[in-house]
Structures are given as structure tokens and as C-alpha cells.
């Protein structure tokens, strides 16, 4: 019996080995014609090469920005084909899953391989820049070419005075209220809180009516929890010169606010470790969340309740979180001019319109924001990008998050005061940057 099973498996094994050999050997052919998106305009390239001075090919890595049903694949094919016909440079576009993208990019770059152009967000950019993995594109981009971008997007794509990225998308988070709860609380949607004090008063009212006032996903990114309050209070975490600011009095105010929200029950009980409060929010048990375009489009599609968007809150300053997505060039690219040209090309006004219309992110150029002329909610959020800070722009930006998060969690568990949490966060950050 056992031997007969071995014989059957042996046959299957042989068939598989032969098939694998055939497929693996033929893979080179599929690579050249079908690597997600490639273009091949043949002889027409030589004329454009002469006019642009560019030639060769580049590999571009980006990620799935949508669920694939809105024409994202076709968009990249068109971008690649148009760029090739304009410049003569062939584009090999490869769509890389979001999962483990840091490891994938770093492995390929460390091995001297990988893409010429790839996508990063602001907390990756300085880390890559410090390790000299990405291209300083200042020499390829003029001030005039950068002038059409929203200033916060340019701030997020540069590090220590050098331009590393070309921003293609932006988000801006703002308070998205459940209108039905507002009506029940007797609050006019045209006079929503603009300051911390007004928000606290509304939170108290919501709590008394049996609702949570706000979402606090304490197990998630600080970009959506502490940082917006920290910036609104006039504080910051660290600056480019490594001065630690997180335990300054203005910063401590944000720790105090979060502690107050938790102890008074304005945020859900699982806020210490929660990753999101979608079920509470979509289930109509939560008054407001910090929402972005994605949340708004989800609300519009699913219609769980009517909603209204209010501007970001203000304490000392009116600020919120909003990420910036950018394309950067590899420092080891064999074709840096073409890489920089592609980054400029894909972020020009027309392509930003196409890209952001499909992905429903906010363009980083003011003149491309007209895509939201018929989408009032998105237009409203697009107007808030001027207040949107893209996280902590620092090589240790990502590593700082878990250490601060742990101190906030200990604070919410009642083990330390807001001042102690801020001081311990500062100590931990100091250890990180001086290790």
C-alpha cells in the first residue's frame, strides 16, 4: 500500500518537475512581454530619444491603490506607453503587494537590484535618504517645476534641504460626524466644534446620551491618534537636529487630552489596544472619527448614516494628519535621468487628475483638484491639505512610534501620569537616536 502510494507520487512528481522546467525556462519570454505592464514601441523610440536625450528602460514599482475594479491596471499601461512615446524610455511597471514592502525594497536595493522608481510615504523617505538608498533629484527638478505643488506635499518629500520625492497623492484627515447622533444631541451641523474646549463639551454631551464621542485606535499608528492633537497643541516629537520636543509643556497637553478622553469614557474602553473602531462607527455608536477620503467614500457607498465633515480642530494651531505618497528614484539606478523624468511625468497635472480620480486620493497639485468639482465631500477634504502634516519626518520616525505608544498605553492603564508618559517617551526616543 505504502509503496504503491510512493509510486503514484513519484509519477506526479516527474510530471510536475517537467512542467516546472518548461514553465521556468519559458519565463524569460513572459517576463519580456508581460511583466505586469511593459511597453514596446520599437523603432519610433529612436526619434524621441534624439529629441529628449533619454533612452534605455526603467523599472517602476508601485502598489495596488484600489481594489482593482476602477481601471488602475489600464491607467498604468497608458502611463507607461505614453511616457515611452514621449521620451523613448521603456517602462517596466510592476505592481508589488503592500505586505512587507519595506523588506522587499530594501532587500532588492541592498543586493544592487530592484526598481529605478518606487513608491514611499514620508516616514520611509528620510530613513532611505540617510542610508543613501534614494536619489537626490534636486539636480533634475527646477523650482518652477515644484511651484505648482501644495507646500505641505513638498515639505513631506524633502529632507535636509534636498528634494527626494515627487508627490502624487495626499490625504487629509478631518472630523467626520454621524449626523443622526448630532440631531439627537440637538447640535447644529453648521456650528460644530472648532476648538478643543468646544469638542470636549460636545463629547460630554454624547457620553451622557450613551454614545462614544471619538475613536482612538491605540494599537494603531500614532499618526491617527496622538500626533494630530500634539501638533494642534503646538508641540512636536523631534526636529531635524534631533532636539526632542515630546515632553515640552505644549506636547504634554496632548497626552493630558487623551488621558481625559479615556478616563471620562469619551472614547471606547478598548482604546488602549484597538486597531480601529469601524464596527462601532459604522454601527452608529460613535459620534465622530478622524476620516480621510477613503472613509468618506466608504460612507457614501454603504450609506450607514448621514454624515457631515468639520474642519480639523484647533488649539494653538489648526493641524491634522495627512499622508503624502511620492515616487522616489533608486540611488543605484543605471538610468537616473529617465527615472527622474518619469517621476515628473507621472506627477504632472494631467496624470495626477487621472491617478487621483481613479484612486480617490487628493492631488498634490492645486490645479488638479478640480477632479472633485462634483464631489463636495472630497472637495472639502482637499481644502484641508494645507493643514495636513505627514507624520514625523525623521529617519527614526517609524521606530519612535512603538516606544511612545507603549508609554501612552501605560498612561491609559493608570500606571503613570501624562507628564510621566511624555518624559518616558522622551527618554526612549533619546536612546533610539543615540544608540
Amino acid at each position, binding site marked *: 500500500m505504502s509503496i504503491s502510494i510512493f509510486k503514484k507520487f513519484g509519477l506526479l512528481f516527474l510530471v510536475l*518537475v517537467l512542467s516546472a522546467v518548461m514553465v521556468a525556462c519559458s519565463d524569460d519570454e513572459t517576463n519580456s512581454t*508581460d511583466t505586469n505592464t511593459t511597453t514596446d514601441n520599437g523603432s519610433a523610440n529612436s526619434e524621441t530619444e534624439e529629441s529628449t536625450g533619454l533612452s534605455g528602460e526603467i523599472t517602476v514599482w508601485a502598489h495596488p491603490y484600489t481594489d482593482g475594479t476602477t481601471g488602475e491596471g489600464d491607467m498604468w499601461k497608458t502611463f507607461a506607453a505614453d511616457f515611452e512615446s514621449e521620451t523613448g524610455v521603456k517602462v517596466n511597471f510592476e505592481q508589488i503587494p503592500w505586505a512587507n514592502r519595506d523588506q522587499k525594497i530594501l532587500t532588492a536595493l541592498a543586493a544592487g537590484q530592484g526598481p529605478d522608481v518606487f513608491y514611499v510615504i514620508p516616514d520611509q523617505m528620510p530613513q532611505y535618504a540617510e542610508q543613501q538608498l534614494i536619489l537626490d533629484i534636486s539636480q533634475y527638478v527646477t523650482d518652477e517645476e515644484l511651484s505648482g505643488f501644495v507646500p505641505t506635499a513638498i515639505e513631506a518629500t524633502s529632507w535636509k534641504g534636498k528634494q527626494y520625492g515627487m508627490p502624487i497623492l495626499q490625504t487629509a484627515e478631518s472630523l467626520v460626524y454621524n449626523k443622526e447622533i448630532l440631531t439627537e444631541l440637538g447640535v447644529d451641523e453648521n456650528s460644530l466644534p472648532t476648538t478643543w474646549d468646544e469638542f470636549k463639551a460636545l463629547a460630554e454631551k454624547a457620553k451622557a446620551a450613551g454614545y462614544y464621542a471619538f475613536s482612538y485606535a491605540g494599537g494603531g499608528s500614532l499618526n491617527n491618534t496622538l500626533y494630530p492633537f500634539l501638533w494642534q497643541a503646538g508641540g512636536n516629537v523631534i526636529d531635524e537636529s534631533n532636539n526632542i520636543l515630546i515632553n515640552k509643556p505644549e506636547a504634554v497637553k496632548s497626552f493630558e487630552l487623551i488621558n481625559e478622553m479615556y478616563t471620562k469614557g469619551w472614547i471606547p474602553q478598548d482604546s488602549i489596544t484597538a486597531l480601529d473602531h469601524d*464596527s462601532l462607527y459604522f454601527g452608529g455608536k460613535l459620534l465622530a472619527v478622524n476620516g480621510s477620503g477613503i472613509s468618506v467614500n466608504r460612507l457614501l457607498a454603504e450609506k450607514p448614516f448621514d454624515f457631515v465633515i468639520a474642519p480639523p480642530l484647533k488649539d494653538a494651531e489648526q493641524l491634522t494628519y495627512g499622508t503624502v505618497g511620492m515616487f522616489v528614484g533608486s540611488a543605484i539606478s543605471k538610468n537616473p535621468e529617465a527615472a527622474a523624468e518619469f517621476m515628473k511625468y507621472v506627477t504632472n497635472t494631467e496624470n495626477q487628475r487621472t491617478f487621483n480620480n481613479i484612486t480617490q486620493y487628493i492631488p498634490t497639485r492645486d490645479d488638479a483638484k478640480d477632479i472633485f468639482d462634483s464631489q463636495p465631500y472630497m472637495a472639502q477634504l482637499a481644502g484641508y491639505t494645507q493643514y495636513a502634516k505627514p507624520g514625523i519626518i525623521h529617519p527614526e520616525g517609524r521606530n519612535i512610534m512603538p516606544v511612545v505608544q507603549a508609554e501612552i498605553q501605560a498612561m491609559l492603564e493608570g500606571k503613570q501620569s501624562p507628564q510621566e508618559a511624555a518624559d518616558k517617551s522622551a527618554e526612549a526616543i533619546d536612546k533610539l537616536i543615540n544608540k
Partner: protein
Amino acid sequence: MKKVISYTALAILAIVFIMPFIIMVFGSLKEVKQAQIDPLFWLPTNPSIQNYITIFSNGIFLRWIWNSIVITVIPVMTQMIFAALLGYIFAKKQFWGKEAIFWTFMAVIMIPQQLFIIPKYIMFADFGWINTYWALIVPELWAIMGVFLVRQFLQGIPKDLEEAAYIDGANDWQIFFKIILPLSFPVVATVGTFAFISNWNDLFQPLIYLTNEKMFPVTVGLASMLGKEGNFGVEMAGATISFIPTFLIFIFFQRYFTEGITMSGIK
């Protein structure tokens, strides 16, 4: 009374273990809206196969399945063969440096695999193996853990069996194929099951070595279909599809697997 307590405890444990499976299957039948409102509430109000349609309507999903089969079945087969052969040699044969060689191999598994990723990437790039099956098949052709399991098992088999066969005139190959292999089938099947689960579910290595979506296995293919915000229903449908082959393999080998686990000393 004792029985009631133990059955109750076992029933609770069974529920705890089966709950993620139920959430996965029922979650795959949920519409997006319900999945968002309460992802862990397990009964879909309007069951729908839309999430499966979304996955299968992707033109190259079947190619991903085929890729997964190739990069899984070949290593499973070779790992079973090498585990049986090498396990037999390390358990029963005497040669100079046997223990040193074996424990040197064993020491390699104590090094975190992440440390090998960049050197392997450089090597595979030099070989032209990036975006091919070779990068995923060749390093998995044999695994010392399988050899260890078979060796442990065979060390428990009395030498008399081999000696009797020698007296009857059998040579080494005959002893291996006629005596050792049939006896060690349960543990070899266990090695195969472990290898199948590990290779079929591997996301990290294919993610690192592959960029061409035509070469993606199911794990990476499904990940590449998910936008930044994810989609609970599609994720669960993907997990369910991906789970079926592992489940079938386990059902097929269950008897041998249980025996193998017991006899090789894994507890």
C-alpha cells in the same frame, strides 16, 4: 462528574479552535457593508459568493494556483525522499564524522532565516533566478528538520530487522525500499505534510524574489489584489480558497500524520 468536566473543557477548546475557521468561511460570504460593521459577527445576513467571483474574475488566478502547486509539490516530494534517505543514513549507518555533519546541519536552522535573505537575493540575481520558480524550489529541495524526524524514528527500530534482511541476502537499497521505507511511511508523510503547509502558505520568500505577477503563488497574488485599506470579505475568501488544499492534504494523510507525530517523538 470528572467526565462532564473534561468533556466541557474539551468542547470549549474545540469551539475556541474552530471559531477562526468559522469566521473565515462565513466572512468570505459577507457583503462589504456587513464585514465593515461587524467583521467578527459570524452569520452573514445576505450570504453572497461575490468575494469568490471577485477573486476568480482576476484573469490569472488559476495561474497563481498552478504556481503554488509547482513551488509546493516539488519540494514536498524531494523533502520526503531526502528525509527518508538521509534519515536512514544518519540513523543506521556508521561513517566518520557522522554526528558532526548531522549537528552542523541542525545548527543551520538555529540561524534566523531573515539573515540569509540578502545573500540569497544576490546569489539568485547572479544566477538569473529572480522571477523564476528556481528561487523558491531549489532552497526548499531538502530540509534538515525532516531528516531529523526520520532519524529519530528510525533510531527506535531494532537493528535485528536489518540484520535478518542481510542474512537473507538483501543489499542496502533493498533493505531501504523493502523494510525501512514502508516502516517509516507515517513519519515521512508527516514530513511531507509539514513541508506542504510551510511552502503553500509561504508569503515572505515569494514576495521578496518575485515581481512578475504571472509568477506569483496564491499567497502573493491575493495580497496583490488588496488595496491599502484591505477588504475583509475578499481576504477571507482568499484564505478559504488557500486553505482547501492544505485541508485535503491533512485529511488524506491524517492517519499517517498522527502516527508519525507519535512515533517521531514530537509531542
